[in-house]
């Protein structure tokens, strides 16, 4: 018993160290966002909300924030819809080349972002659709749909296949069955997917930078500021972006977890 206590203690420290390693830079950034000094050095200067005031006063940042919200909201809807459709086609139908079909759908996240971004830019400008807000939405939908599909597919795999047949058997047409059985069953996964894809889109920098043109999103604006000079405004924006993404991811996890528990009960 004593040995396992020691082991637990060491493992506990290990976990704390991992979290420290992951979150220290972010916490530093948060701390410095409230620091009056221009350069991030220790000892800290005085507590100050100067950088936040500057950020809030900057119309470019407001515009970028608006763009980011529009893009991530639209992306979440489109990617989740696409993800649901592909997950359902996998659940419901058996066809030749299903393996390659699924592999192809899951491919986008495995392509290096910079390659993806370049390819998107080349393609979108070729068909005259680059440099617009919807260009980012298109690119992000491609990028995040596989995540949506993976989350919803997990849920569908928990479904008793008889459930769908049972709905037909009770007089439900295929559409009614979709509406009253499949979608309600997948609801937790659909919400989870909405938040997850929104978070990924909200954070994404490389693809946005290439295809956005003048419609910068928040991560792109951050880079533009950093390129010019060292400005603690970045810390303030970073804190905001981090909190937004974390909220979305936590919400996604909450839906995910609640459906796991329900899955265990039934």
């Amino acid at each position: 018993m004593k040995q396992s206590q020691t082991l637990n203690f060491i493992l506990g420290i290990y976990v704390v160290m991992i979290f420290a390693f992951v979150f220290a830079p972010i916490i530093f950034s948060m701390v410095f966002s409230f620091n009056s000094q221009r350069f991030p050095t220790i000892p800290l200067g005085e507590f100050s909300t100067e950088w936040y005031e500057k950020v809030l006063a900057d119309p470019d940042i407001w515009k970028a924030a608006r763009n980011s919200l529009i893009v991530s909201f639209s992306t979440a809807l489109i990617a989740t819809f696409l993800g649901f459709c592909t997950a359902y086609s996998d659940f419901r139908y058996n066809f030749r080349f299903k393996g390659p079909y699924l592999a192809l759908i899951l491919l986008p996240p495995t392509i290096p972002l910079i390659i993806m971004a370049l390819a998107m830019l080349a393609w979108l400008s070729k068909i005259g659709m680059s440099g617009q807000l919807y260009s980012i939405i298109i690119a992000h939908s491609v990028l995040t749909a596989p995540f949506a599909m993976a989350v919803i597919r997990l849920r569908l795999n928990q479904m008793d296949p008889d459930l769908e047949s049972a709905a037909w058997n009770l007089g439900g047409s295929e559409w009614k069955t979709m509406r009253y059985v499949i979608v309600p069953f997948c609801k937790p996964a659909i919400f989870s997917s909405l938040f997850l894809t929104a978070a990924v889109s909200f954070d994404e920098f490389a693809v946005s930078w290439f295809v956005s043109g003048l419609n910068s999103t928040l991560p792109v604006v951050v880079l533009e500021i950093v390129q010019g000079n060292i400005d603690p405004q970045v810390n303030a924006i970073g804190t905001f972006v981090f909190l937004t993404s974390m909220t979305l991811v936590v919400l996604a996890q909450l839906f995910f977890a609640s459906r796991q528990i329900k899955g265990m009960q039934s």
Partner: protein
Amino acid sequence: MSKPLVIFDKVQKHFGSFVAVKGLDFEIHQGEFLAIMGPSGCGKTTTLRMLAGLEEPSVGEIRLNGRVMNDVAPHERDTPLVWQSLALFPFLTARENVEFGLKMRGVSKAERKQRAIKWLDKMGILEFENRHISTLSGGQRQRVALARSLVMEPQILLLDEPLSALDAHLVIRMQAVLTDLQRELGITFVYVTHSQSEAFAMADRVIIMGKGEIGQIGTPKEIYRAPANRFVAEFVGRNNILAGKVKSVDGRAAEITTPSGIFTVPTNEVQLLEGHSASFVISADLMHIATEEPLGTNKVFCKLISEEFVGSMVTLFLEDAQGHEFKVQMQERELSKFDLHSGDEIWLSWDVQSAHVLNES
């Protein structure tokens, strides 16, 4: 009882090169309790799914009330099914589950509620109407599943091994619930099971299926006492099957030579020809045991191998000098008069009329 509600007309079902159902030709009567029984993979569930429209026959026709059903979509039929997995909707409450079919059919909200409540009450689970499925016990879920199908007030109810997930004592209780319901409602039940006790306890008629074909259709008693062929006899179990050659045929009786001896059997519709092979069966509960050599022709001297107790009934497993196994089923209190032990030798006998000749083909 006589009007056919459903007709299976030379129905076959192929899955690729695999033939799941090889040719079904039978009728289901209005208001009967029909059980379809067979080992797993015999095609019984496929048969039921074809009736519900979830599988389409590859060959042949299924007619319901004279209407050819082959191309009718499942949701356009009125053939509710009680699933082996129950297939209750986990995101709905008990009452919403029962209302589901009515909602699909466009029944108004008020009527839906009233009819669902009526059936939940009838099944004795009204107090759970607002509970989610995951919080109900196995027996309660079973009743929700039944109510969900019966609320549709169908002419025919399909049941696919609905009791297989329940504890033994609940199975007995649900059997009573089902037979009472069927009698009260007067609707046709088609009940698929692999359990002989369920089928024989509830059904008016039983279809025994094996390898996609019908082995026998008949009342439980007919199937038990007079199995049509070796497959049915073996499936029904607790039977003694003897095979040999016909020695002589004399009108109402025949003599058959087997390795265990020469036995007299009553003739039936199976044609017996001298010199041809034949087999017959005697139910285990029609065998007698005796310590002295009995009179009569049908007797075998055996050694007791083992005993199996099921409550007050005992099954004895014995072997004759040729190593052929015999089974005897009797009351425990009768057996105790004999004070038998493994390895003891004893006479087995049976009345001529207890034997039943099997169809060899």
